[in-house]
C-alpha cells in the first residue's frame, strides 16, 4: 500500500518536473537544396517562412522570394537568388522559374556582421533594414559561405538578414541559414 502511495505521488511530480521545465529552443534553420537535390526543397517564401519544391513553387509563384542553385563554372557555387533574378540554364522542366507568370525579385547584399552580431538581432529591429544598401545590392548572393551574413529585400519590401550556418557544394548541395526579418 505504501509503495502504491509513493508511486501515485511520484508520478504527477515527475510529470510536473518534465513539462514545467523550459523547453530547448527550437532549431529555426532553413535548408534549401540546389537544383538537383532530390530530397531538400530549393525554394523559400520569406513571408510564410516555408520551403517549397519546384513543382510546389510553380503553383505558388507569388510567395516565392528566394531559391538556391549551384553553378561552379561562374564561381557562383552554392548561391541564393530569386525567381526574378534571371537565372538561366540551371532549372529545367515545365515548372522552372523561367515559365512562371509571377517572378519576384529579391536583392542581396553581403554585410560585415558577424555570427555573434547576427545572434543579437531580433525580428523587427531597424538594424535589419539599415543593413541593406539598395545601391550596392545584387540579384544574387554568390558563393555563400558559412558564417556570412547577407542582408536582403524582397519584392514586397520585407527586409531580412540571413546567416549561413552550413553549406554543401554541388548540384545536390544545400545551404542552411537563419533569418531575421523586418
Amino acid at each position, binding site marked *: 500500500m505504501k509503495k502504491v*502511495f*509513493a508511486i501515485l*505521488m*511520484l508520478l504527477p*511530480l515527475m510529470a*510536473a*518536473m518534465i513539462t*514545467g*521545465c*523550459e523547453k530547448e529552443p527550437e532549431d529555426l534553420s532553413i535548408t534549401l537544396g540546389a537544383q538537383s537535390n532530390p530530397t531538400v526543397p530549393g525554394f523559400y517564401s520569406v513571408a510564410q517562412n516555408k520551403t517549397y519544391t519546384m513543382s510546389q513553387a510553380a503553383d505558388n509563384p507569388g510567395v516565392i522570394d528566394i531559391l538556391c542553385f549551384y553553378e561552379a563554372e561562374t564561381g557562383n557555387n552554392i548561391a541564393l537568388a530569386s525567381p526574378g533574378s534571371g537565372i538561366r540554364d540551371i532549372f529545367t522542366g515545365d515548372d522552372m522559374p523561367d515559365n512562371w507568370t509571377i517572378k519576384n525579385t529579391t536583392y542581396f547584399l553581403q554585410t560585415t*556582421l558577424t555570427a*555573434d*552580431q547576427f*545572434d*543579437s*538581432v*531580433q525580428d*523587427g*529591429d*531597424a*538594424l535589419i*533594414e*539599415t*543593413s541593406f*544598401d539598395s545601391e550596392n545590392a545584387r540579384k544574387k548572393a554568390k558563393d555563400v559561405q558559412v558564417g556570412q551574413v547577407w542582408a536582403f529585400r524582397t519584392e514586397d519590401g520585407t527586409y531580412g538578414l540571413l546567416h549561413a550556418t552550413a553549406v554543401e557544394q554541388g548540384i545536390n548541395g544545400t545551404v542552411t541559414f537563419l533569418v531575421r526579418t*523586418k
Partner: protein
Amino acid sequence: MLKRVQTIALLFVLAAAGCVQEEPVTTPLVLLRSASEFTADGSVVAPGGSLRFGLSVSGGGGAITNLVVRRISDGVAVTEADKGMYISYGGLDTILTYTRGYGQVEQWVFSVMNSYRDTASVSLTVLKGAGSAWGEIDYHPSIRIGLQDNVNLPHFADLHSGMAWDDAGVSGYEAEVDMSAFWYITSGKSSPTLTCPAYSSALTYYPLFGTWSVRNQTMYDYYTSDNDLITPAQFDLADNDSLLVNAYRPGSVSGQSKYAYTGKVVPFRTADGKYGLIKVIYADETAEGGMEIAVKIQK
C-alpha cells in the same frame, strides 16, 4: 504519517527547484552605419565641421534602456548625451549630429544598455583637419514671449526661425517649438526660467504640452549661465558658430534653465542637434510678465 508528509514536501521542493528559470543571456548590438552621408572611422574633419553618426541598435533580447555618447578629445572624456529609454521592439535607428572640436584626436564612443543591464559599445576616431569649418548662424535679435500667466504675448518659441505662437496659434506647429518660459520661486529665489516641451515639470505651467505628439527637448547649459561664462558682449560679437558650439558644456545641461535674469547668456542645443545661444534682453519676475531674448543658432 509524519514521514509521508515529509517525503511529499521534499518531492515538492525538488520539483520546484528542478526548473529554476535562468536569466537569459542577452547581447545588445550597436553598429555605426557606413553610408557616405555618415562620418567614417578615421575621417579628417576641421574644427567646426559637422559630424554625423548613424546608429543602429538591437537590444539583443532585452529592451534598449540607455544610450550614452562620449567624446574623448585628446584623452579628455565628455559625456555628450546620456539618454534613458525603453524600446522593447524594433530596436533603435537614430542619427546624431555633433560639431568637431579643437582636439587633435577625437574618439567617439557610443554605448547601449538593455533591460538585463548587458551592454555593448562601438567607437570611431575623427582626426583634426586643417583650418576651420565653423558654420553660419541665424540671428534673431528679438523674440518676445510671455511667462505662464501672460495673456498678451505668445508662449511657444521656435529658436530656429525666431517665430513664437500663442496657445491658439500653435496648433500644427508643435514640432517646431523649442522653448517656453515661466517664473517661479525656487530655493527662496525669484527665477525666470527657460523650459522646453519635453521637460516633465513644464507641464505644471503649460499643460498643453501633454497633448502634443512631438515634444522637443532643448538642453540648456545652466552652468555657463549661472556662472556668467559668456557675456552679452561676447554674444554680440559671435558671427559664426564657434562660440555657440564651444560654450555648450554637455556635462551640465538640463531641459530647463533657472535664473534666466536680464543679461544672462544661456547656451543650448535643440532636439535636432543645433547649438545656439540665448541672450536674455529682459526678463520680468512675475508670472504675468514677459521675456525678451535674442538668439543665435546654427544654420
